[in-house]
């Protein structure tokens, strides 16, 4: 019963997502909406703005540095939580 329900749910879900995908822009096409002025400015100005020739690094550490800051906080939060859950050596303290 549970299995049938899960399978139906999954199939419905995939169906919905594929339905949305069938409307999406074509894969790898240069005139897609995603390749607009935003990404062009990143490619064009990155060296001048940030001094990084690796554009990805320029984006994650300068343009969108707030994201990366959040990302290191995620790691920190996970490390603290894992310490809370698993650390035995602190029990004797």
């Amino acid at each position: 019963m549970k299995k049938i329900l899960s399978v139906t749910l999954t199939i419905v879900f995939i169906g919905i997502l594929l339905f949305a995908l069938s409307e999406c822009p074509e894969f790898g096409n240069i005139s897609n909406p995603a390749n607009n002025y935003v990404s062009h400015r990143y490619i064009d100005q990155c060296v001048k703005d940030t001094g990084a020739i690796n554009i990805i690094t320029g984006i994650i550490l300068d343009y969108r540095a707030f994201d990366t800051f959040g990302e290191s906080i995620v790691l920190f939060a996970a490390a603290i939580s894992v310490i809370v859950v698993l650390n035995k050596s602190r029990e004797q303290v």
Partner: protein
Amino acid sequence: MAVEANFPLLILLILLISAFMMPVIKNIRTVKLFSLSAMLLSLVLSVFTFKHVSRAGTFVYKVGHFAAPWGIELKIGYLESIMSIMFTFIAALIIWASFYSIEHEVKEKNIGLYYTLCGLLIASLLGIVYSNDIFNCFVFIEISSIAASGIVVVKDNKENIKAALKYLILSSLGSGLVLMGIAFLYSVTGNLNMDYIHQELVNVKDLYHNTLIISLGLFTVGLGVKSAMFPVHIWLPDAHTYAPSSSSAMLSALVLKAYIILFIKIVFRLYGIDIVNSMPVLDIVLVTGAAGMIYGSIMAILQKDLKRMIAYSSVAQIGYIFFGMGLGNFLGFVAAVFHIISHALTKSALFLIAGNIIHQTHSKEIGSLKGIGIEMPVTMGVFIAGALSMVGIPLFIGFNSKWNFALAIIDSNKILFIAVLVASSVLNAVYYLPIIINGFFGEENIKDKVFRSKEKPVQVLLPELILAFAIVYFGISSKGIIDLITKSIAGL
């Protein structure tokens, strides 16, 4: 640019950097004071931000050197600044209240880490509220879901671990769905900033109509899982019941609300209410909200455990909020935002009081709370304020929010739903009032009970008393805050 414009970012940095310092501080007392003072400082800065907003209007603040759409920006209007005051105010009170109760529930070695996680959690929630960049919101959502599971699991019991794992897996599923929604939106607009996405969406909304509906659906379900919308609320009762009571208060009062604020921002700022009203999503939200109102109340009546009852009551109250948003009209959103504030005040008071009661009587059962009103009159006084507010008695804040819901229903011409509202209120009364009656009345209930025998000192109860005062104060004079919320929704 005014100095106050820097404050939102400064609040985030203060909370985060103070959280980074806490694990290396050895003295627990220092950690507690440090955490409280960071929160109070944030509260003061939030008040200044609010004043700046009411003087200069909504402003955007670019984080770093690059303006949107290339960089990330924070956008602070009335809604954000009110929510920021509310979050920091309630978080400060909860942290203050936890000073006296946390030792009973958490091992001493973990207390420093507990306050670290609290700081990270509040900072990430404020990040969700402030940020105007959808992917940045996603990052903050992830921080908050890890930190929220962390403050559930900090109490080292069997049930806590099960509850936290359930919460973590479900909320990770939810954030996966949100990320999928972002991917669809990015592929049709090429932007991540909410205002810019909206600009592009207006142009392409006919071309990609189904994609937009499905991505809004993904956002709804994803954020719904995290804010315990009715059919996907299954993690909430466990997590709220077994967590330490200060964590339960924080989860119920603040964590759920941040995702709802994000949902409101998505509806108004990212899609625009016109586009959303042309889609069937809000109707589904309306139905699930109404179902949640009834289901949560009925489940709460069936519970025997005090905290579990309050947890199911949260499911019902979240149902109210989604119900208000599902009405789809302006007043519905005003009522929903007002209920966010009302529920945050009430539920944090109730959970903190429940923690006190459980600690003093060593019993979680509702049936054993007989005569408790004689033993702990002040504690029960706060409980009564919270309970009556939940039921919707005039003079308490809960009444005002129910009144607003009723106005919104009438405005939207869906009169039948008034019945749902009334039924849910009656059901609320069915499970809150017996506790009060058992606590104060009935001859055999109160005999042998010594007046104030189990009461805690008043300074310990001060945070709860402040919350009770706020419940009554806003219950009597809610006009100002409703005007502000009206302005804030109009300004989104």
